[in-house]
């Protein structure tokens, strides 16, 4: 399991490959579900030029660990990877990656989605949007279901 807060831009698919290369689960995993959240240039009809992501060092990592441990208790998982970007983010840069590895697809699909929803609703991150008309804290996330 790896949970990391990243201050620099990362490439989600390269990161998944690096991580998988170090895992010793060949032959065991049959299913990998992943989600990548990426910086858009719009939100609620506003034009966004950049985004700044703040977090709570210590609590953010701890809360993500609690989420992952809950998923490991509920589903048969071989591994979980979460990367989350903080700081100033440009358009089309990746913000979050959640990946789950399992023998079977049901466990991988369900855990990936639930981890992502729990991250959105509980992990201490806050987005501030720089738009063409000013700067504004995002007040709530788009519903996931």
């Amino acid at each position, binding site marked *: 399991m790896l949970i990391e807060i990243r201050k620099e831009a990362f490439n989600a698919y390269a990161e998944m490959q690096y991580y998988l290369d170090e895992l010793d689960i060949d032959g065991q995993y049959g299913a990998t579900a992943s989600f990548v*959240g990426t910086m858009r240039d719009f939100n609620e009809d506003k034009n966004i030029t950049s985004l700044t992501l*703040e977090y709570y060092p210590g609590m953010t990592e701890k809360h993500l660990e609690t989420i992952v441990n809950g998923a490991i208790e509920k589903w048969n998982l071989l591994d979980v990877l979460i990367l989350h970007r903080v700081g100033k983010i440009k358009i089309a840069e990746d913000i979050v990656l959640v990946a789950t590895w399992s023998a079977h697809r049901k466990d991988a699909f369900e855990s990936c989605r639930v981890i992502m929803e729990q*991250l959105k*609703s*509980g992990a*201490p*991150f806050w987005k501030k949007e720089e738009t063409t008309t000013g700067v504004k804290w995002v*007040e709530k996330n788009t519903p996931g279901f």
Partner: protein
Amino acid sequence: MQVSVKYFASLRELMGEASSVIDIEENISVSELWQSILESKKVVFDNVMMAVNMEYVKSEHQLKSGDEVAFFPPVTGG
């Protein structure tokens, strides 16, 4: 007794500070602390989320000396 208090995001900007150390009486809850902060700062803020020692707590959670108390707006990560 003392607790340290942290603010994040829009609440940090509203408070004009990221953290402070506050003297409180014993046997007060995290929501009582929050109300007293709002009154002393003369601000209003809806939908606050509260954590003590980096874990979410209920509003009636009793504070202990040395606790790290955090107040912040609804989270918007991912």
